[in-house]
């Protein structure tokens, strides 16, 4: 039995790792070729550059070689964690830009994630405890509202209300802790509402199971039941949602960083696309994909280990 479990787990991990590698290769290839198809030249901007200088610059950055050669050079560099140099910000390695911008986006993302998770679980638990009472209805209405506001609008609303009108927080920029509050709240709003609804549905479903009735008949209080019996079972789908959740936070961060003027990865991505800064776009796309897919891989593994039902289901099918 143990051997069989072990085999299944290895099989699962290998399959997931295989998908991870294929997807990453696809992202690298797709991004590379799509990006080079973008019309325009990275060096044609403000002033006209003479033919010779343009040629010299193309030669310098290897743009005069056939596309397929450029692709293999890029792959080779990638293995040494060398992402090339930015076209626009001359002399700055892409890896350096990423390593400077990442901690900012990471801090923002983690903070938003914690708010969403904490708020979502608490909101969901409260709503499920008052199932079908007015408190539940009120929370549900609020959540429906939160789910209908795009991130850039909630960010704007927060900025206008709390920073411009009430003057409670800084309007924009990045620095102290108070700078982080509004952006992370705006970023957390949608995932929070989604999680709260998910948690509520699951908790209510679990509350109707037989073992909860038993626990109730033992005389445990509502909160004790929730804490001891329900949460563990109701949290599994929440773990499964972590992957999309992280993706949502990342996607939101593009907009939020632009609105609040935060020098994170999202901001860089948006500007680099405008500048046709090939190495920077590629570096960011690959970094993002690696991060997101790596995280999804981890979530899948954790989920697999946590939920014995998946293993059972796989052996039946």
């Amino acid at each position, binding site marked *: 039995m143990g051997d069989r479990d072990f085999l299944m787990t290895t099989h699962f991990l290998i399959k997931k790792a295989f*998908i*991870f590698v*294929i*997807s990453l290769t*696809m*992202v690298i290839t*797709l*991004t590379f070729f*799509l*990006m080079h*198809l*973008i*019309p325009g030249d990275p060096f044609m901007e403000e002033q006209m550059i003479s033919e010779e200088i343009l040629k010299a610059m193309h030669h310098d950055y290897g743009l005069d070689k056939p596309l397929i050669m450029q692709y293999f050079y890029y792959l080779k560099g990638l293995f040494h964690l060398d992402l090339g140099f930015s076209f626009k910000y001359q002399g700055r390695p892409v890896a350096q830009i990423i390593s400077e911008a990442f901690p900012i986006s990471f801090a923002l993302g983690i903070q938003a994630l914690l708010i969403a998770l904490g708020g979502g679980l608490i909101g969901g638990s409260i709503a499920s405890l008052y*199932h*079908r009472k007015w408190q539940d209805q009120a929370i549900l209405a609020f959540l*429906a*509202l939160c*789910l*209908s*506001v*795009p*991130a*850039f*609008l909630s960010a*704007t609303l927060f*900025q*206008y209300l709390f920073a*411009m009108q009430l003057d409670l927080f800084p309007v924009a920029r990045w620095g102290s802790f108070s700078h982080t509050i509004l952006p992370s709240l705006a970023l957390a709003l949608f995932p929070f509402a989604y999680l709260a609804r998910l948690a*509520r*549905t699951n908790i*209510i*479903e679990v509350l109707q199971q037989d073992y909860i009735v038993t626990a109730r008949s033992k005389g445990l209080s509502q909160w004790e039941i929730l804490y001891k019996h329900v949460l563990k079972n109701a949290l599994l789908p929440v773990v499964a949602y972590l992957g999309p959740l992280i*993706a949502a936070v*990342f*996607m939101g961060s*593009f*907009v939020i960083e*632009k*609105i609040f003027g935060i020098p994170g990865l999202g901001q860089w*991505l*948006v500007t680099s*696309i*405008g500048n046709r800064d090939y190495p920077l*776009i590629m570096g960011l*796309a690959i970094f*993002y*994909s690696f991060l*997101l*897919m790596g995280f*999804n891989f981890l979530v899948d593994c954790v989920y697999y280990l946590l939920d014995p039902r998946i293993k059972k289901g796989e052996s039946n099918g």
Partner: protein
Amino acid sequence: MGKCDRFFFFKVNSTLVFSLCVLSALLIFAIAGPYLALHSYDETNLAFKNLSPDSRFWFGTDELGRDLFTRCCVGARISLIVAFAATFIDLVLGVSYGMISGYGSQKMDEWMMSFIDILQSIPYLLIVILLIVLMGPGLITVICALAITGWMNMARIVRGQVLQLKNQEFVIAAEAYGASKSRIIIRHLLPNVRGQIIVVLMAGISTALFTEAFLSFLGLGVQAPVASWGTLANDGLLALRYYPWRIFFPAFLICLTILSLNLIGDGLRDLFDERKKI
């Protein structure tokens, strides 16, 4: 059905009916609005710039003196066309993919699902952004970009349903009668998955609206003088401090539409899926 259940059911339905009314009102607004308006959507008049709402300009004007009411109507058309067209492509692609995957051989199912696994693990937004930059922003581009990324969810759900259905008696009976595969799919499987499909469709439309607004915000949506709600909100954002109504109307319309779509989706799910009635 207890008293509480019946009360709740009525409540769900009243929300559903109400949001359907709101959505129809929005559709009428999008279709008829420009004919009601006193100005054309791209008529500029610098003498009337940044006016607040009054009897002549119901939603005020923007920095070029264009009437915001008309622009919101035209924006509604664009936003809704993008959302519906993208979702329609999702529907066709996702349902056929899911049907074939679920009803085909197990080997094929495995391959088709692995393909979706791979596609879904790619952060789609990067691909969308690159595609739009590549093809040049515009209506068709946005629709394509939304469509190529949205169908996988539908395919997954349809396939899951078909897997459950295909071993049930009525399908086996049809097979025994010698019905062809396409007949079984169209006559027996499709009607049974209908509820699920509609629910996913509703979620798809609101996601498409969200993404369209998001892309417009990044400057990758439709280009001026045409406007969508997203681009209007983006324009209004720049003038937030002094002319807050310029962002209010498009923002309100976006939120209202998504809210009503979400509520319709929830209501329909409760109607179709007894188990989920919580």
